[in-house]
Every structure is written in structure tokens, then in C-alpha cells.
């Protein structure tokens, strides 16, 4: 069953001119966002991107970028309340990952 989340929100960008078609992004993406066609990576379905950052981390030529931050609701709330960046350095004790 394919899970679908909100559309058109991802911060993922791919710079085709820089791409060397090494295939690392397709290897690491947990949701099959990329395919390699004619030695270039292409985005199949942007809306499957969960901004985990694996692709950008492993692109040797920095052709990919994404805002791969914390995805935890609690962290966002605390960040908004304290006016700081959300972090997963939890003082939430046993409730945090």
C-alpha cells in the first residue's frame, strides 16, 4: 500500500547539469524518488520525498539539495515556543527518539 502525504511541499532540488549519473541517489532513496535514465538522475515523483537527506548526503557532485531537518511535531512546537531551531536533542526524556 503506497502511503501518500501532503503534496508540493518538498524542498528537494536536482541540478541536472551537475549530475554525473553515478546512481547513488537511486541507491539510497527509501521511496524510489529517483531513476537514472541516460546517465542522468531524474525525479519520478517529488511528492514521495520525505526530506530524509540521504540523496543530498551521498551525491558526490552536490547536484542535490534538500532541507533535511527534524520531522518531529514536538520538536517544532518547542522550537516555535523558544524561538530557536527545532532539534532532536531532546530533554523530552524517554519520549524522544
Amino acid at each position, binding site marked *: 500500500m503506497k502511503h501518500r502525504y501532503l503534496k508540493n511541499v518538498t524542498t528537494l532540488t536536482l541540478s541536472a547539469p551537475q549530475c554525473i549519473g553515478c546512481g547513488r541517489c537511486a541507491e539510497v532513496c527509501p521511496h*524510489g524518488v529517483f531513476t537514472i535514465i541516460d546517465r542522468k538522475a531524474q525525479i519520478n515523483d517529488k511528492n514521495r520525498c520525505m526530506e530524509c537527506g*540521504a540523496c543530498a548526503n551521498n551525491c558526490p557532485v552536490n547536484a542535490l539539495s534538500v532541507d533535511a531537518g527534524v520531522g*518531529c511535531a514536538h520538536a517544532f512546537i518547542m522550537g516555535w515556543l523558544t524561538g530557536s531551531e527545532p532539534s532532536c536533542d531532546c530533554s523530552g526524556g524517554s519520549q524522544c527518539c
Partner: protein
Amino acid sequence: MSHHVTPFDNTAPWVTGMLSTPQGDIPIVSTQLTHKDITGTWKVRWGIGRMNYKIKPGLYAVGHPEPTSPVLVSANYKLTFDSLRKELAGLDTWLLILDTKGINVWCAAGKGTFGTAELVSRLAKTSLSAVVTHRTLILPQLGASGVSAHEVTKKTGFVVVYGPVRANDIKAFLAAGNEATPEMRTVQFTLRDRLVLTPMELVPAVQKSLPVLGGLFLTNQFARRPLDKHDAAAITGALAAGTVLTPALLPVIPGKAFAWKGWLLGLGWTSGYLSKVKRFKKGNRLLSAGELLLLPAISSFFAMNFTGSSTYTSPSGVKKEMKKALPWIIGSAVAGGAMMLAAHLFGRRDAS
């Protein structure tokens, strides 16, 4: 002279022997989980001892690995370690266990602790380059959020190959010559995956509710309209709707945002239950109206929290749904809570 490559806890029941190498003795780990391991898993799923369920990082052996045997890299959260080793029966491999402070691979990768720096450091500390003659590391695919493969190669000469998402595909992956099918590379979020996470949604929610329930117990002593077992059931059901039912039914509930799904289930429960126990009759209306505003908001809030445990929500999406949902959740919770409090403290004494 033999020394321990890995300063492991030698009372660990999952070590079945020692492998001598020129670099020192390396603990051999069992691929069979024991009753104690299963119980340990169950406990951490319920949040008991969860922040301290770890093993010492370092180099371990499965079976009787040679200098040519593959190296699998993983995290020192014991649940991760157990999930991995139980899939390796009959294999001869090295296990390089990173210090992720007892956190699983994917979360640690997101935080950076299952990362390039720790991997490079652990390679040096275990002298892995002297133990194996090849220069390949097989990492769990979900470690890629924290590890930069080309950086690792630049710094150590080791080549990173990303293995399958799930440990139970490792044997097939290795047999195919380190090849993964698209299915092996895709993360799921099955019913079982979702259900095992619900205790860690429910338990903190109940803990948070205790002071409120305690307060209500006190006010019940002098309130004009004490809360009774039907109110308790309604509240409990709303908590369960947000923390357990929404995760369980996630893909079949209409809508994409978790807050919305939780609100729908919470509203369905509250209105259905209150209707069934005839709480929309005269004398109960203010209390019930308050419950109709507050309880779905509670369910919505906890369902929204489940985004942090899911395998497919993006931070951008979560931020968007929170910015939309929070004002409504807070607004209806405050309004509903105020109505409930008014009915409870000052309402009709003869209402039932």
C-alpha cells in the same frame, strides 16, 4: 598477547565465544535470540529502559569470518543489534557496531550520530583495515541520511555499499553479489510496523493526562455535575483514537494530514459514543457540546504527533499541517474545555 579489540561486556549472554585474530580477540555473537532478548524488545517498545538499551560499540564476529568476509555496519541500540543478528544464521561476517548512543539506525542517521565522523572514528578504533583484506563496508540503506559515502572513501579508502532497508533481505542481498531489488530499497509502513509504535504514543499520552485526571478527581468532590464513567470512557476513547486507532487505520482514514485523520476518528468516536449513551438529552447538552469540541482536538493532537514516528512524512509537510491544525486544535480545546468546566462546576445537579 591477546587483547580485546572491542571492550564489550563479557557477561553478555549473546557472546558465544572469542575469535583470535592478529589484532586481538573479537567476540562472536549468537544469531539466536533468547527469551531475555524478546522480553527486552517488548520492554523498550513500551518505553521501559529505552534510553539505556545498548551494547558497547566495536567490532564483533558472526560465525567464523575470515579477512575476506563481508563487513556489516550497524548501531549499538540493542533492538537494532538483535534485529540484525537474528537474520545472519549460517553466515560468516564481521559486524562493525557504531556508537549511536543506543538509538536505532534511521533516527541516529537523521541526528548525525550514525554518521561519517563516527564511522571513520570506529574504523580507526577497531583497526578494521588490519582485520580485513578487502575495503568494502555494507551499510544499512537508512544510514545514508547520516553517512556521506564519498567522504568515507576519501578519508579511509573504504568503499560504502548500501545494503537493503530490512535486515531480513541481507542474505538474499549478499547471495546476489551485493545487489538489491527495488523492493529491498523501499521503506514500508505496514500495519505491524505502525502497531508496534503505538505503545510509545499511548504511554506518554496517559502520563500527560494523569495530572488533569487528578485535578478532575478533586473537582468531582464538590462539582455540581460530577464527571462519571461515561465521561471517563469518552475521554479514554479519544486518547485511544489519537494514539492507537489513527496509527492502526492510517492509510484507510480519509485525508493526508495526520491531524485531520485524528480529528475525524475523534469526532466519530465522541459523537457516536455520546449519542449511544444518550448524552445529547436535556441537562447534558453543555457538557456534551464541550466534549464534542475538546475530545476530537485531543485525538487530533496525538495523531499529529505520530508524524514523528512515521516513515514517509516530510518535515515540510509536518510544518504545513501543524501551522494549519494547531490553531484549530487549541481553539476548540480551549472552547470545549471551558464549556465542560462550566457544566461540570456550575451545571445542573440532577443531570445524569
